[in-house]
């Protein structure tokens, strides 16, 4: 072989290699598929993550959730106690070429507010707010009381185009979820355009050349492959079928960290994994005596019993063994670095003998029986955490059964499977990621007294209720001064979790992504897997 041919071949080979490595398309293997392409159909992590690339929001979180970035709004300020003014970005066009104006935002806001037929609503972000158009690029949002969290709430409302023609009807402003699922109405202002969604298989997005805004567009084309099975996802990355996977199984992290074919990145999330306990029924369906017969009293109503349960749980063992070290022990609603935490509260120490004394003091020294219910495909190692909690309680005199089920069955039953749409179970494992990036969202949803009309306690499946905490929380929600609001939120947390043991926090999730070498995923705190954050090193 002549020297020149050799050089030629090497050059060809080099181009091929770099061609493969530099190809501007990315394949991402992700665990959870969105349930719809309609931005208001389901307030669900995977939906919000995926659709945020197609649709713009006025305001967005930075990747670490430590500050807000301007997207469709360029600036915002409170112009008086009850009115927020948002200045909209000029010159933004939708994927179909039409102009973005205040009308589109108002249209979107109304559709989100009045949405019917979805799986869970965005009304918690639109309730009690009215939008006024001042001019094409200025809107005012008015509330009755001072509302400091307005910009935070706007990170949840995606903007759709008011010009799009859907399949009609009077509901949902004439746009049906299927119009979004087939792409007709999936017209946004985001950096990526919708190409095709094959349910159960993949979603393809393409770079939008006319994009105007702060987000990066590292890829020409992004294909999201939905790979639910944990080992299959890891295998797909190792085989080179995908460039990146999310939700790396904790059991694989040890081996993958030594594997030269992959590089890992991880970040603490805003999600706390915790336990709800039935505090509203005198006879709770899944609380029994030790041999499984119904009890006519509900021990979980007693804060001392709840505290004792918390003390029986060895969080170190959960973090080290179940989560293989990839989690952080929790003592409240958000990990360090987030707004509205209490500096006083620590994760409960494991103290089985103290727990027994406390149980005895509460009159339950002989123990009782429980059933823990949990999902098995929602949170990292969710079913195993349920098992571990059951083991720990059983060892300490509260024999506990474990029942886990897929999330689409679980959440419906856990929230409203009982009589009169009450929560069905007595002792449940759930997780909560604070969408507002501070502690008012979980306090409002998980610990405030359940009141549908006020939008309070929407996910309060144990029905913890303490008027004192409600008062402090309401005061916090109406306090504009950051420092004062932070203090009030911390106080509400201290009452709801510290004094009442309204919920039992277990740990904060740490999310892990794995990429092939040469790529890097900028780990996010909001758990979202977004193609924009996958970059070449």
């Amino acid at each position: 072989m002549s020297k020149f041919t050799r050089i030629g071949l090497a050059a060809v080979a080099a181009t091929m290699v770099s061609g493969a490595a530099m190809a501007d398309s990315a394949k991402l293997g992700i665990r959870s598929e969105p349930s719809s392409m309609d931005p208001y159909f389901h307030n669900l992590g995977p939906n919000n993550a995926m659709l945020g690339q197609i649709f713009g929001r006025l305001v967005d979180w930075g990747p670490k959730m430590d500050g807000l970035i301007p997207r469709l709004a360029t600036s915002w300020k409170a112009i008086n106690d009850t009115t927020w003014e948002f200045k909209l970005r000029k010159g933004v066009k939708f994927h179909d070429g039409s102009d973005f104006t205040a009308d589109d935002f108002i249209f979107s806001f109304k559709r989100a507010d009045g949405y019917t037929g979805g799986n869970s609503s965005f009304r918690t972000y639109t309730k009690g707010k009215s939008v006024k158009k001042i001019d094409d690029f200025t809107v005012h949002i008015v509330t009755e009381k001072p509302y400091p969290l307005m910009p935070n709430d706007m990170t949840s409302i995606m903007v759709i185009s008011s010009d799009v023609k859907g399949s009609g009807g009077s509901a949902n402003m004439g746009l049906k979820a299927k119009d979004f699922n087939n792409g007709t109405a999936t017209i946004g202002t985001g950096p990526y355009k919708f190409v095709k969604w094959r349910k159960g298989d993949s979603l393809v997005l393409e770079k939008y050349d006319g994009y105007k805004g702060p987000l990066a567009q590292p890829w020409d084309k992004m294909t999201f492959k939905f790979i639910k099975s944990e080992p299959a996802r890891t295998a797909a990355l190792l085989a080179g079928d995908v460039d990146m996977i999310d939700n790396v199984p904790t059991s694989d992290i040890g081996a993958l960290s030594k594997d030269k074919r992959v590089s890992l990145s991880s970040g603490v999330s805003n999600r706390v994994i915790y336990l709800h306990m039935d505090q509203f029924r005198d006879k709770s369906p899944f609380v029994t005596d030790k041999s499984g017969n119904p009890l006519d009293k509900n021990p979980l109503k007693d804060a001392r019993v709840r505290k004792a349960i918390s003390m029986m749980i060895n969080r170190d063992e959960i973090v080290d063994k179940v989560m293989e070290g990839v989690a952080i022990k929790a003592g409240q609603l958000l990990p360090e670095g987030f707004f509205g935490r209490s500096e006083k509260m620590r994760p409960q120490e494991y103290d089985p003998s103290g727990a027994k004394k406390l149980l005895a003091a509460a009159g339950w020294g002989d123990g009782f029986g429980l059933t823990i219910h949990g999902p098995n495909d929602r949170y990292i190692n969710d079913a195993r955490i349920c098992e571990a909690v059951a083991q720990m309680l059983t060892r300490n005199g509260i024999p506990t059964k474990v029942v886990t089920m897929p999330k689409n069955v679980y959440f419906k039953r856990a929230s409203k499977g009982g009589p009169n749409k009450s929560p069905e179970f007595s002792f449940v494992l759930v997780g909560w990621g604070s969408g507002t990036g501070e502690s008012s969202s979980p306090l409002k949803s998980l610990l405030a007294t359940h009141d549908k009309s006020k939008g309070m306690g929407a996910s309060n499946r144990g029905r913890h209720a303490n008027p004192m905490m409600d008062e402090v929380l309401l005061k916090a929600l109406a306090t504009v001064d950051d420092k004062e609001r932070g203090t009030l939120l911390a106080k509400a947390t201290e009452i709801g979790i510290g004094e009442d043991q309204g919920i039992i926090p277990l740990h904060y999730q740490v999310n892990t992504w794995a990429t092939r070498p040469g790529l890097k995923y900028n780990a996010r705190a909001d758990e979202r897997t977004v193609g924009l954050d996958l970059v070449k090193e």
Partner: protein
Amino acid sequence: MTVINEDAGVASAGQGSEGVETPFQRFVSDFTESKIAVVSAFVVLAIVFIAVFAPLIAPTDPYDLSIVTVADKTMAPGAVMQSGQIAHMGTDGSGRDLLSGMIYGLRISLGIGIGSAVVALAIGVVVGLIAAYAGGRVDSVIMRLVDMQLSFPAILIALVLLVTLGKGVDKTLFALIVVQWAYYARTVRGSALVERRKEYIESAQCLALSKARILYRHLFPNVLAPLIVVGTMQTAHAIALEATLSFLGIGMEQTEPSLGSLISNGFQYIHSGHYWISIFPGLALLFTIVSINLVGDRLRDVLNPRLAK
């Protein structure tokens, strides 16, 4: 009951064998000619014994949450657990002793396999005999139903049923019965049709015996041989099917794992080097199914007159 034996004896005596042994003795001597079949039969018996006496044999109770602890999670074979006991085959992802888990899992797998086979057999026999004896339109309707069911893959029907019904022992059992009855119905009908034309049935009819009596006392004993063969094979099939369903995560609950769910659990650790969690239950499943199938094969050879030497 004597009548049945005479009938059966007469029928097979007609096949041309002679000698002084009873049919059962002949069956035993034929069966034991194959060494592999004998070994397999012993393995099957041993497995059934282990399954039945699981609580006495297993070193620990894998369902007792007061003993099982996550502190023992994914320990290699031979490691010592918190309780001081040795985990001879290691522990699984929940900290259960894998050997005990397998012994209990075997119990569930066999229970579901045999249980569903027996019920499906009962249904299939009744339906098949009715079809064969009644003939005509009844036969056509039943057989088209059977054809319809057999034209779908068993796994597909079971999947659809379990996805709609949910997990659990009862539901898995139900799904497996639904999937299997048609095999028995078809087998029974086939051999019953042949037997029906034989003289002893005619003579029974001439004696004006009731239909039920002819069906139960004369026809049924003579279709038993192929049924035993199909029953054995189907049991193995049912065990494999249950394991598949549990592996896919829709059969048994994780808290009461069958062999299939144990393999599925272990599959999560396949990239992390904890091979034992899925390999050992996999081997147990393999041995169970292979030995049942070998026994079934031999039974077919022995009981099928056409293959007789």
